[in-house]
């Protein structure tokens, strides 16, 4: 089974500051990795995902994440945040190969990012 740990439940930052949201996962098999974002009173939408290849993945709205297999991490970063980035961010994993499937997507508990002026 897979599990996801988002190390910070809340992250407050000032506008234009850099931010890193941390995600660690546990799995006995290889996984696909995702970051989803939930803006206030909305559903989740995909920010980015790591499938294979380069360990640095670029997503929408200037976000990027780096897959580190040895540390089983997939941290999300943005060099300069805006007020509009205020949202809850969810890291998620699903196993690769025959053991995988979209119904096996496991979410972390979420990190609330608050960007202050």
């Amino acid at each position, binding site marked *: 089974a897979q599990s996801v740990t988002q190390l910070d*439940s809340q992250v407050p930052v000032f506008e234009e500051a850099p931010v890193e949201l941390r995600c660690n996962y546990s799995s006995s098999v290889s996984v*696909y990795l995702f970051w989803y974002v939930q803006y206030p009173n909305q559903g989740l939408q995909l920010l980015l995902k790591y499938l294979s290849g380069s360990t640095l993945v670029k997503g929408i709205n200037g976000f990027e994440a780096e897959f580190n297999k040895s540390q089983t991490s997939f941290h999300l970063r943005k060099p300069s945040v805006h007020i509009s980035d205020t949202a809850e961010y969810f890291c998620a994993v699903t196993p690769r190969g025959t053991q995988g499937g979209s*119904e096996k*997507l496991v979410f972390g508990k*979420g990190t609330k990012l608050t960007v202050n002026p």
Partner: protein
Amino acid sequence: NAGVTQTPKFRVLKTGQSMTLLCAQDMNHEYMYWYRQDPGMGLRLIHYSVGEGTTAKGEVPDGYNVSRLKKQNFLLGLESAAPSQTSVYFCASSYTGMGPETQYFGPGTRLLVL
């Protein structure tokens, strides 16, 4: 193209009452999912469907039933609501059930059971 829509947006029930949540998608997706979101818990899968006429249990199926009579619709039913079912319910869909597939979420239904 509306994507994934959910009806109703908000509902208050009394313990023991029943209700049905409706999810509709216009993207011709095969797979559909129902999740519940509770504070500090992330999202947990209730039931899912791999195609019209098929349903399967997820992580937390107890107290819920589902049906997928049409490809574009996925219904979630609560036969006898309990306060523990107070939550925000999200429907999602994906084109296939492959692992890398992106899931597309609806705006959610807030349910309060008194």
